[in-house]
């Protein structure tokens, strides 16, 4: 028996280039209330040919440093190992997010390309077994995920733990950081629970003030620990024209239907009623043309933002990167009212609050 010390993963230099995000499937073996993706079918798996087409067409004019697979649960894609292998033939690094439920079987299929794995993102929504299993509505999921952590640790594959911060786990931020560090994880990512109708109904979504408090707590943890800690995606910003990596065109999101979309968060958004974020069907449109449409969309978004700022101050929802676009793209029209209602806003004018109570 050999007791191992826990190594910290050294940072490794990586070549420059963009990040491609492929939603490999909209199927999932979990049913988490706080998930941003639409749960109901019909179910689709992204054709491998689309992945190949995008890589070929994009590599022709800019290098792809990293390919990320999301979903749904991307490892449920029937050709998951083939897609991983395909990406390695282009010389790109690979990462994917998973709930870890079937990880031993998944890893066995892709082990041959583990040197191409930048990291594996494991979705862990609580530092304690009961918190995670309750949020994930899947008894045993914490321990299955710990099996995934163990396998990666022993095979030298960097792990990033990802935690969606909800009202049910926001008291476990520090415990999560300590857990990730002691498990020898390479990084830890936090993300705000997005205001889907289901997550709001379950009272899991924090309001603006609470989210800012979470961000300050995360900033303090970043100062304390040497392990990289990130707040992924949505966050508050004082900048009126802050741009996420998608809007900076450092990252590109292709949904499970084969569309280039303007946003990785809004894609297949739960409760969404429109496809206003969809730019091009890559089955029939070249990636270059889709990229042109993205550039036009970003310009249009910024112009509309400017015009709106000229006419009124940004609302609280608009002061967060992802919720700004959620409102802008009208993905779930009724959410706009909810996000600006006194019960969800952190600062409510006195007269408005009195009126609401009355």
């Amino acid at each position, binding site marked *: 028996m050999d007791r191992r010390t*826990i190594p910290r993963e050294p940072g490794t230099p990586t070549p420059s280039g963009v990040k491609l995000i492929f939603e490999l499937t909209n199927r999932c073996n979990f049913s988490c209330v706080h998930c941003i993706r639409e749960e109901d079918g019909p179910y689709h798996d992204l054709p491998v040919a689309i992945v190949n087409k995008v890589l070929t067409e994009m590599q022709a004019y800019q290098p792809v440093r990293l390919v990320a697979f999301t979903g749904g649960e991307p490892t449920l894609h029937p050709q998951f190992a083939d897609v991983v292998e395909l990406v390695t033939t282009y010389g790109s690094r690979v990462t994917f997010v998973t709930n870890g439920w079937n990880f031993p079987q998944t890893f066995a299929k892709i082990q041959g390309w583990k040197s191409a794995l930048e990291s594996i993102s494991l979705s862990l929504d609580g530092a304690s077994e009961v918190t995670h299993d309750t949020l994930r509505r899947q008894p045993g999921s914490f*321990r299955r995920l710990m099996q995934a*952590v163990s396998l990666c640790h022993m095979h030298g594959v960097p792990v990033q733990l990802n935690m969606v911060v909800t009202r049910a786990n926001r008291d476990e931020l520090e415990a999560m950081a300590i857990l990730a560090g002691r498990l020898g994880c390479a990084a830890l990512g936090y993300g705000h629970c997005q205001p889907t109708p289901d997550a709001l109904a379950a009272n899991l979504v924090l309001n603006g003030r609470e989210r800012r408090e979470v961000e300050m707590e995360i900033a303090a943890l970043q100062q304390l620990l040497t392990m990289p800690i990130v707040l992924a995606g949505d966050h508050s910003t004082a900048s009126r024209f802050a741009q996420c990596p998608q809007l900076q065109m450092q990252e590109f999101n292709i949904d499970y239907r084969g569309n280039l979309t303007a946003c990785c968060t809004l894609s297949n958004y739960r409760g969404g009623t429109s496809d206003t974020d969809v730019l091009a069907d890559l089955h029939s449109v070249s990636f270059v043309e889709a990229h042109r449409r993205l550039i036009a969309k970003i310009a249009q978004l910024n112009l509309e933002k400017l015009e709106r700022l000229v006419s009124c101050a940004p609302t609280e929802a608009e002061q967060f990167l992802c919720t700004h676009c959620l409102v802008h793209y009208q993905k779930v029209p009724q959410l706009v009212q909810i996000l600006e209602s006194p019960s969800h806003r952190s600062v409510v004018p006195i007269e408005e609050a009195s009126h609401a109570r009355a």
Partner: protein
Amino acid sequence: MLAPETVLHPHPSLVFTRLDDTESVLLHLDTKRYYTLNETGTRIWELLQQGRSAQAIIQGLLDNYAVTDEEAMPLLLAFVDELQQEGLVQPTAHRG
């Protein structure tokens, strides 16, 4: 010395994961320590998980490996000693 009827219980905070056909890893959720088990250790651990007695584990080793009865007991004793030192098994219980 282990009594033949002794049953050792894996600590409830341990997560067992097979690495391949031979090796495995234990993660202790309380201490966050990893422990690797070789082929024999993995086999013994799986028998422990099944609630087998020391006598049954020795029989399992005799059935699967080219060891004699005299060799199997010290092997098991040494392994159990390490498990106990690391707090990986609960206090022993005896089948009534």
